[in-house]
Each structure stands twice: as C-alpha cells, then as structure tokens.
C-alpha cells in the first residue's frame, strides 16, 4: 500500500504540486464545454488537492534529515537540506570522454568516462526549510483568491497557471526554471488583472509588469553571469569539458566551499561584485520599496480582490525569496560589507512607507503601503545576517501573507459578480462580525501577543540589536507607526452595504484566523523546520556561534 500508492506521491510532493495545477488547467480547458459547474468542480477539486499536498509537504519535511552518501556530505553538508528532489535533463548532454591513465607498471590505458558537457539545464525541483513555507503560503492564498472567481474558464485556467508558476518559482532548484516560473507568474497575474478590476488597471498593470520584468531580466543576467563565471573560473582538469552548472544547490555549495581558488580567485572577486549588484537590484526592484512603490500601490488598488490577495500575500515576496535563495548564500561577505547601508536604507524606506500609509485615506492604499513597509522590514531583518533576523524576517513574511490575505478578503469588493450576489439578497453577515474580524486582522498585523505578527515583532529585534542600534530603532519606529496607523484606521469602517457574506466567506475567514492564531501560539513548529536551512545562510563565523548553544537541536547534529 505504502510503496505502491503513497510513496510515489510522498517522494515527489513538489513535483506533484507543480504538475497538479497544470493538469487542472488542461482539464478546465477541456471541461469548458461542459459548463460553468464542471469548471467550478474541477477548480475546487484541484485547489483542495493542492492544499492537502502542501500540508503533507510541510508535515513530511524533516529538517534534520541526515545525508546518506559520503559524496553528498562532502558537497552539501551533513544535513539533507533540499528534500523531495526530482531532476530531469532538459538542455545539455552527457558525453563519453576518453582519459589516458598510467598504471603502476607503466602501461598506459585509455578509459571512457561520462562527463557532463555544456549547459546542464535541468528541470530540477525540491524544497528546503525556507521554500516549504512559501509553497504552502502560495497554495493557500491562491486557493483563497481563486475561490472568489469561478466565472470564466479562461480565468480559472489562469488561476491554475498562476498557482503552478508560483509553486514552480519556489520549488525550482535550477536557475533557468526559477526565472521562467517567475516571469510566468507575472504573465498570469497580468492576464487575471486584465480580466477584472477597476478602470485604472489598464494603466497600473503595465507599470507593474515593467518593473517586475526589468527585475527579472537583471536577475537573469546576474544568474547567467554567475553560472558562466563559476563554470569557467573554477579549476577543472580539462577546461574545455567544464559543464555549466545551473543547479542552485550545487552553485551554492561550490561557492561557499571556495571552489574557485588560485589565479581565478582574484578574477572571481572582481566579477562577483558586479553579479552581486545585478542580483540585488533585480530582486529588490520588484519589492516596490518606498519611494519606488507607486506602481504596486496603483496595481493593488485597482486589482480585483483575488489578485490583490496574491499580489500582497505572495508575489511581492518573490524578491525576498530571491535574496534568501541567491544573494545571502552566494555573497555573504558582500552583504556583510554593505550591511549597514542596506539596513539604514531599508529602515528609512519602511518608515517612509509607514508614514505614507498613515496619511492615506483609502483601505486598499493603506494595505499596499503597509505591505511595502512590512516587506522592507522583513528584508531589513534578513540583511543583519543573524539567525534571529532571518527567522524574524521569514516569520514576518508568513504572518503578513495571512493577515493581508484576511484583511483584503474582508474588505468590501466592487466587483460586479459580488455586487450581483448582494442584490440577490443572500444571507447578510452582521456588521459586528465583520468589524470584529477586521479588528482581529489588524491586531494580528500589529503584533498582538498570541497572534501571528507578534512572533516576528518579538524575534526580529534580537537580531537587529546585535547588528546595529539605528536599524533596530528604525524598525521599532516603523512598527510603532504601522500599529498607530491601523489603530486609527480601525475607526474608518469600510462600507459593506453592497456586499454579502456567504458560507464560503466564513470558511475562508475561519481558516485564516485559525492559521493566524496557530502561528502566534505555536511558532516552534515553523521555526524548527526553518532554522537548519536558515543556519546554512549565515556566514561561517556566525553560523558557528549560532550553533554553539545547546538549545538548538541542529547543534547536536553538527
């Protein structure tokens, strides 16, 4: 039973999560002749299965799973960080090389050795302790967002396309696959925004896409340069046969272990500075940090409810994920060298966005600006290169995804379909409940103890104070302004007179509320899965000091 049915799914969970929505999109395309009900059912089954698989993935991930082979131990360390891996050759080939070998007795022998040659681009997927949470958040929020829009077959297929792209972005362990999935995500969002939203979306969507695409291109340039530079500059017996490595784990392991040495090392030092800035700009641009936030705020304000949830909850965080996946592990010294500048700029940017949110009078603009501020604070924690800062940063992203999703879900929607439902006169929820839920979301965002936002607010200062007092002060001031802004905004109740509350709304709100409370009450479940992967991002000296404590189970393994 286990081997025949469960194991094929269990061992390839990321692949299933990637393929399931693609399969669903195909079925939706076929089923569109069967009517809207068939499409709705297909979507529901697909989303439910995806959510179930993502929960399974989170539960099944073993943060301290030891590596089996000695070769992997030498390359990637004693803990199997990337799990549930699948790899399929895409571009590139394996050639048979003839090597001449001299025996002890002096005889010469020609042997055939398989050697990877050329660009080794693969469809490689897998997850670590960081990406599982982004995968779970993506699946959850896309399910929430898509559940509000089952009208058109094209939009249903687009939602599934978006889910596949997002999951692919976070599970990809190949540079090319990562970039392709990321850009694909933007196309799906553009498609969905074109389908619905207010009249301003025609101006806002191109602005959103342009910035993200520029960022994507810069990232492509940076990662391509990284692959080329690493492939050509590292020592290899026969340079003509050096493969270009696109695998993210191998790239990280090779660079961290100082694979480039000798003459090439000096060259590498001068090259990686350029690559570093390409990646930094490429990943930071799509974060829409203040004062470069206008495009995101306009797009968020004009997007339909579902797209707004995905925009704020997941899509904006791909840039931060890029920092975690590429910038921090590949260039720790450069991050540390520019750490003070980064933290100061990020702190000022977050504070600026928070003050702008304070002056905003519209709920959507408030959420958008507070989101920019929150993302900046997450990155601020991560650039401290401390375990507390990294943990707090990722927890803040998760918390923000849940609270922003809940808040956007609760706001009245101007979409024609929802207004039509209101006119049909279904059961209206009493405003008291809505007010209470909005207040709950705001408190979770502010960081009321026991709710999700509190964990990040509690943990991050530990890292910030270790790094620099100014960064900590800016972060705390920003959190204070955001909290104050939400307390004042809470008086400005949204107008729900044109919307209704359905059982589906109750279910979605209950799920998000439960997760908010769960993350606030039992954060150790998340932290335990996350910490080994975060530890591997730290520079060597800090990694050693962080694991010296007896309280961390990772230390025992190491």
């Amino acid at each position, binding site marked *: 039973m286990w081997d025949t049915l469960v194991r094929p799914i269990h061992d390839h969970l990321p692949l299933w999560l990637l393929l399931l929505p693609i399969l669903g999109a195909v079925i939706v395309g076929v089923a569109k002749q069967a009517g809207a009900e068939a499409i709705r059912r297909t979507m529901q089954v697909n989303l439910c299965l995806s959510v179930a698989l993502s929960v399974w993935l989170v539960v099944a991930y073993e943060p301290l799973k030891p590596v089996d082979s000695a070769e992997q131990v030498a390359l990637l360390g004693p803990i199997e960080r990337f799990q549930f891996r699948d790899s399929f050759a895409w571009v590139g080939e394996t050639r048979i090389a003839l090597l001449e070998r001299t025996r002890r007795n002096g005889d010469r022998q020609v042997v055939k050795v398989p050697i990877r040659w050329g660009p080794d681009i693969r469809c490689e997927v897998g997850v670590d302790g960081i990406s599982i949470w982004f995968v779970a958040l993506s699946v959850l929020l896309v399910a929430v967002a898509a559940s509000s829009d089952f009208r058109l077959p094209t939009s249903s297929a687009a939602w599934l396309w978006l889910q596949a792209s997002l999951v692919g972005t976070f599970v990809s362990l190949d540079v090319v696959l990562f970039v392709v999935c990321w850009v694909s995500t933007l196309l799906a969002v553009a498609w969905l925004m074109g389908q619905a939203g207010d009249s301003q979306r025609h101006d806002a969507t191109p602005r959103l896409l342009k910035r993200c695409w520029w960022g994507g291109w810069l990232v492509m340039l940076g990662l391509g*340069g990284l692959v*080329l530079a690493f492939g050509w500059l590292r020592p290899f017996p026969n340079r003509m046969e050096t493969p270009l490595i696109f695998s993210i784990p191998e790239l990280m392991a090779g660079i961290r272990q100082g694979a480039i040495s000798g003459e090439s090392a000096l060259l590498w030092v001068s090259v990686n500075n350029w690559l570093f800035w390409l990646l930094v700009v490429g990943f930071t641009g799509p974060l829409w940090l203040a004062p470069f936030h206008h495009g995101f705020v306009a797009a968020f304000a004009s997007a339909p409810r579902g797209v707004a949830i995905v925009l704020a909850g997941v899509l904006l965080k791909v840039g931060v994920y890029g920092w975690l996946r590429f910038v921090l592990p590949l260039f720790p010294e450069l991050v540390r060298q520019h750490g003070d500048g980064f933290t100061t700029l990020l702190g000022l940017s977050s504070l600026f966005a928070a003050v702008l949110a304070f002056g905003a009078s519209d709920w959507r603009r408030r959420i958008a600006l507070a989101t920019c501020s929150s993302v900046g604070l997450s990155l601020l924690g991560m650039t401290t290169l401390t375990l507390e800062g990294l943990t707090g940063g990722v927890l803040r992203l998760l918390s923000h995804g849940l609270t922003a999703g809940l808040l956007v879900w609760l706001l009245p929607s101007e979409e024609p379909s929802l207004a039509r439902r209101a006119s049909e006169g279904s059961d209206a929820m009493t405003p008291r409940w809505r007010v209470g839920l909005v207040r709950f979301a705001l408190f979770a965002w502010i960081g009321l103890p026991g709710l999700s936002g509190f964990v990040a607010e509690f943990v991050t200062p530990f890292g910030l104070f270790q790094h620099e007092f100014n960064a900590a002060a800016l972060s705390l001031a920003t959190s204070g302004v955001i909290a104050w802004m939400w307390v004042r905004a809470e008086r400005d109740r949204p107008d729900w007179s044109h919307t209704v509350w359905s059982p589906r709304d109750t279910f979605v709100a209950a799920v998000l509320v439960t997760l908010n409370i769960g993350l606030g009450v039992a954060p150790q479940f998340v932290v335990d899965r996350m910490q080994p992967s975060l530890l591997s991002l730290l520079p060597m000296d800090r990694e050693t000091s962080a694991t010296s404590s007896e309280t*961390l189970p990772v230390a025992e393994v190491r």
Partner: protein
Amino acid sequence: MDTLRTFMIGALVGAPLLAWGLSWLEGQLSRQVLLNVARGAVIVALLSGCGLSFAARSPDSSPVEFAIMSWLRMPGFGVTLGVRFDGFAFVQTTLVSVVLLLVLSAWPAEVALRWLMLAWFGVTLAIMAGNLGQMFVGWTLSAWASSELARKPGNNLRPVWLVQRVSDFALLAGIGIVWMHFNSSLEFAAWTPAAIGALRPELIESIALCVLIGVIGRCAQLPLTIWLETEVGFAAQTGNSMMKLSDVMVGVWNVPDGHQVAKRLKSDPANRWHSADEDSVSPPVLAWWLCAAYLPVGLGLLFRFEPFFVVASHTRLLMVAVGAFTLLMCSMNAASQNTWSQVLGQLTVGQCGLVFVALGLEHRHGQASALLLFWWQSVILTVLLVANSEFRRSQFSGQRRSAVLLIAVLCLASGLWGRQAVSNLVWEQAWPAESVAGSAETASLVFGATASRLWRIVVGLVCVSELLVSFSVLRAWFHDRRQQSQQDSERLDSPPWGLWLTVTAMSLGGLWIGNEGKFTGPPNLFQLGNLLPLSAAGMVLAWWMYSKPSSLPEKFSAVMGPFARLSRNRFYWDDLYFLLIVHPAKVSGEWLRWFDERVLGNGVRTLRSRLLHSLGESAEPLVAGSAMIGALTTLSSVAVLAWMLLWLRS
C-alpha cells in the same frame, strides 16, 4: 500531588478562558445561564487558587514555578510559558475572584460579558505570569478588554484603550532594559541580588522609572490621570481627539442645580464642564476597573519589581511624591462630586496613591499594611459600587437606602485603622532617629529637596486628605439623602442579607489591618493618633454644611470650584497629545503623500518624457518598456558579459 497541582493550575487559567468562550454565545443562550456559568467559573478559580496555595507551598516561602510549554527556542534565547505562584499571587487572585463575584451580581445587561471574561483572563495571566513577557501580555490584555467595557454602542471612540498605551510603552521600555542587561532572559529568577548589584545605579533607576511610569498610567496617578475620563477638550471639539472622555470619575461642576452660578455656567456655550451622566461608565464596570483590573494589577507590578525599587532610592521617592499629591488631588475632587460612584472612584484612586506612599517606605511591614488596606478597601468599594448600581435600579429606596448608605460610610471609615498604620510609618520616616536622619539627608535629593523634607510634606498631605475623605463621604451621603427625599418611596424592600454580612466582615477587616494583619487582641482606639480627630473634623464639617438646607454648600462650591476646575482641567494632556503627536503625524503623513504623488510621481514621469524627447522617437519602445526590446537587451547583455569573461580569462 503533581497531578492535582496541574489540575488546579489548569482550572485557574482555564476557567476564565472557558467563561470567555461561552460568553460569545450571549444573545443565543439565556443571560441568567451565562451569568451562572461565569459565577461557577469564578468559584472554581477561587477554590483552585486556595488549593494551589496549600499544595504549592514551599518550605522557604519562595515562589513556586511551573513550566507549561516552550513557546519559542532560539540559539540565543528561549521563552517558556509557565506559572509563578506565591502568597502575593494567591491574595491577588482571591481579590479578583471576590470582586468578580460581586460585580457579576449586578452586571448590567447592556454591557457585553465577553469583555469582562477576557479582562479576567488577562488579569489572571498578569498575576500568575512565569516571565516578563507573559506578564506584559496579561497587562495589555486586561487593559484592552477592560477598556472595551466602556465602549458605547455606535461609538467608535474608546475612552481608556489608547491612553493605556502610554503605560504599555513605558513598561515595555523597562522590560527591554531588563532583557538587555540580564543575558536576554525574561525570567524573574534571573533577578538575583548579585545580578542586580552588578548593574550600574543609573540603569536600575531607569528600569524602576520606566516601571513606575507604567504603573502611574495604569493606576491613574498624577500626571497620567487622563484615563480618569475628562470632558471634551479642544482636540475633541475639533474632531481630532483620541477619545471623547466621559466624566464619570472626575465628576461634574459642583454647583447644585438651581444656583445662579450653575445657571450661568450651563448657559455658557464655551463652558464644557457640564454633567454627562449618559456617557458615564456603569458602576459595576467601574468597580471592576478600580478594584480588580487596573489598580491591583498596577500595584502588583510594583511589588514584582520590588528588587529594583529597593535599590532605586530616587525613583522610590518620586513614587512617594506622586502618590501623596494624587491622594490630595483625588480627595479634593471627591469633595466636589455629586454622585456616589464619582466619590468612590476618586477615593479609590486616592487610596492607591496612599499605597504608593507606603511602597516607598523603607519598612517592609509598612508595605504589607498598605497592601492589606488596599485589598480590603477594594472589596468594600466593590460592595458600595455594586449596591449603588442596585439602588439605581430602585430596588431600595427611602429610609432603607439611607440606612444602608450610612452603614457603608461607617464601613469605609473602617479603613481608618489601616491608614493610621501607614501614617505612623510615614511619620517615623519624616522624623527619624538622629543617626538615620543624617545618612538620609546626605544620600537622597529629589528636585532639590531632601528626603526627610519630602516625607514631612507627605505627612501634611495625608492629614489634609484624611479630613477631605471623611468630609466627602458624609457629604455624598447627605447629598444622596436630599435627592431621595424629593422622590416618592413606594417600595420598601429590605436590603440583602449578604450586604449586611459583607459590611460586618469589612468592618472587622479594617480592625484587622490596624493590627498589621494579626489577631493579637482588640484594637486600641487611642492609638489612632492624628487621623481620628481629622476624620471627625471632616465629618462634623460635612454635617454642619449639609444636614440642613443652607447656603454653605454653594459657598463651599464657589471656593472649591477653581481648584476642582484646575485639577479637572487635565484635558491639556489630551490637547498636548493631539498637538504634539497626532496633528504633526497627520500633517506630515498628508504632506508626504502629496510629495510622493505629486513631486516623486510627476518627477519620474517628467524625467521619462524628457529622456524620450532627447533620445528621439526611435527610443520610444525602449523607454516604454517593450518586451521585444527588453528581451534583446537581455540577450545582448548576456553576450557582452560572456565575451568579457572570455577576455578576462585569456
């Protein structure tokens, strides 16, 4: 035994949570059922507290700590949720349970029960917290939920919630300093004498000062008396106030109706000091605030941070000054109130000021007497406020009511022994033995005054306050009787036997406090010293002024008026808050938004169009961000980079 202990801890913490959960069914279940469930939960918590105090008694009377769960473990720190139970926590939980039972007996139908239950959970959490983090959570939760009790239907403004954040921030700063200097530990156990002794004196003073500010905000002491709700100030009139503060505890302009001064004041549109009974908080809510949530939890925090206050001599003297002047101010305000709830509210806060004074004493037994006094007075005041609430519902009337109120006055006066005990210790502190005096004079200076001079001023303030307390209580009784005589007394119900029993118990309790918590014999009335004559003088004064219709009250009001108005004009805090913080933040936020949209947004657009203009029309697709151009640029960039790398490698 361990299982039993765990069960009792679970019952103590779980009872409020269970009651809170069930209270969400208010409106669907019968109100009487919910009230009975809540009472049952309170009784369970009370019994569990009693059982725990016996089961968890340690031989060396040190607090017993239980770890419940590990909330978060990081390499540098860990937070474990647990319970810390000692004698002080037992008394606090008992007080809260008793007050809650009394409050529930008269809980108004228009106030939601769930906030009361949540506030109870917060108070329990703060009292039994195993570490500073838990304590802060309980502290904030109790304040928030308690303040929600005053929210009026359809009114977005919350009177107390926002103001309480002042004390939250101060306490948070104190906790932050503790955390930074105690190896990132939030545990109480880390406060060993050696660890505290290793700190610099100014750090200890800073911690104590932050905690003191937090407690001042929570206990409505000067100058953070703003949650003693004031009338609408300038900020509120302009629509920008953080709240519309009702006037239940501060009182109204003390001019009886019909007086020409009252007519003039009420006809003046610029005068904001008018009666606002419709905005007032109901007496049971007031009883909860004063006697179970705000004041006891605040004082409990001072007690928890005692290791710091013992060393922080300057902050301790500041605490004494704050308490003494609050005592005076509240006593004078009480003398100008027209309703029982307002008088009792002022007196409670004033008594809290007296406890501040006692906690500043160097004698430990003085602190114990003061805390005992406060706890007894809390129960007495709860009974009076709850009884007052019942009177409002006209369950009693006429002579019966006057009799009950007279007994209540005597009951309140039973605290005289406790106040005298504190007063005697203050006297000793003000005029100490020669050897002690010399060291105190040289060691402590507060705002240029020596410690002993401050203590002498405190003696004077305590004496004046005692006179005003008895005066205000008797005056309120006469005032109430005068109002009642104008009404028909159609129903003559007998007062509940429980009230008589409680009054008797409280009177005996007052005597017990006078003997410093020991039943060593009958209290010696002749040891009352200076307070008895002062109290008697106040009563005689009130009798003279109010027992018969005369013009004396009006004259007295005219004399007291300026001071009452001065002390009540605390609205400047509201105005200052608005003018210094809210208004600049709003203006800067709006200005920055304008700057962001107009200057930055237009600037970028202008720059782009200029660039387009200067480059010519051929570059338009590049500026517009065509996908084709972008893709070609990317590919060419990759090619250039590859060529550069090859060149460098060669």
